[in-house]
């Protein structure tokens, strides 16, 4: 290249300061890292980094507190919405979010999720739905698709004996306590940008005390889906999106 463009005045994109410089422990191509970064960018752009408190789950994102440069704590498996309830009630002026996988939020933590949403607790729930238990080696989650193989559904999920994949977002959207519920993804640049806009909206509603906001991110797990990252994103489009369609589920009236 004739001219050197690499100088500060030409900078158009770099890692947000709301994330630390630690190397993420996630597998190559895992959507957790991208979802973290969009949440962090939303926090930085709204200038609420010093007033935000996050709650990490149990699951692959158990170490999320290493990566967000905001105050964070860790909850027992599935209990993040209960911990968030306590934090937000004691410090209502803070921006509070939970970050949870589908095993954490939709299996062991179903009660906490539903009751926090039903009470209309004023925080953001970020729900990463990759249809599987990633951390523990690929067991079936409530969100695992019909016929999808996992270590505990080796012949594929059988609806008759294992129930239907649980649509948590549609379920909590029925509750009067939720204010904004949407489903996004982080598998293309356009979708990544939309996800950030949804996070920003949710934090803005939180400022106005509107009730619970839940943003689901349909994500991949290349390691346990046993695919390359690029294949996993394609598989997600073809198999996850028909059952978990992207878009707004509940928007302010």
């Amino acid at each position, binding site marked *: *290249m004739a001219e050197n463009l690499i100088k500060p005045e*030409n900078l158009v994109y770099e890692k947000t300061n709301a994330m630390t410089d630690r190397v993420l422990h996630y597998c*190559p191509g895992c959507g957790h890292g991208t979802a973290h970064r969009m949440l962090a960018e939303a926090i930085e752009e709204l200038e609420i980094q010093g007033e935000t408190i996050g709650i990490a789950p149990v699951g692959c994102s158990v170490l999320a507190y290493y990566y967000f440069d905001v105050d964070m704590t860790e909850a027992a498996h599935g209990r993040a919405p209960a911990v968030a309830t306590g934090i937000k009630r004691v410090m209502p002026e803070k921006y509070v979010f939970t970050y949870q996988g589908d095993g954490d939020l939709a299996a062991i933590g179903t009660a906490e999720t539903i009751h926090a949403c039903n009470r209309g607790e004023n925080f953001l729930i970020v729900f990463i739905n990759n249809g599987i238990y990633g951390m523990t080696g690929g067991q079936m989650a409530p969100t695992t698709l019909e016929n999808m193989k996992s270590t505990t559904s080796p012949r594929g999920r059988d609806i008759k004996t294992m129930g239907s994949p649980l649509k948590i977002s549609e379920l909590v959207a029925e509750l009067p306590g939720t204010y904004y519920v949407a489903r996004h993804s982080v598998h*293309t640049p356009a979708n990544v940008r939309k996800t950030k806009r949804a996070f920003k909206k949710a934090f803005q509603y939180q400022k106005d005390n509107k009730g619970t906001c839940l943003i689901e991110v349909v994500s991949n797990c290349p390691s346990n889906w046993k695919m390359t990252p690029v294949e996993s994103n394609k598989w997600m489009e073809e198999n996850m999106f028909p059952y978990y369609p992207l878009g707004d589920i509940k928007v302010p009236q």
Partner: protein
Amino acid sequence: MAKKGDVVIQIEKCKGCEICLASCPQSVLGMSDKVNSKGFKYAVKVNSACTGCANCAVICPDAAITVYREK
């Protein structure tokens, strides 16, 4: 004419997932022959057609890419 851009890829952060390759509208990115200290092949520039659109950096799960664009 489209503006010119350039990217800096942090080799040690890259895990070789290849998601950025598919996201670049200009096909600027390819994979290295060498590996980094963790044993991953990493993304490299294979031509100078970059327009600085930042798609690759936005999609990178590991925030390994920084993007520059002429003013």
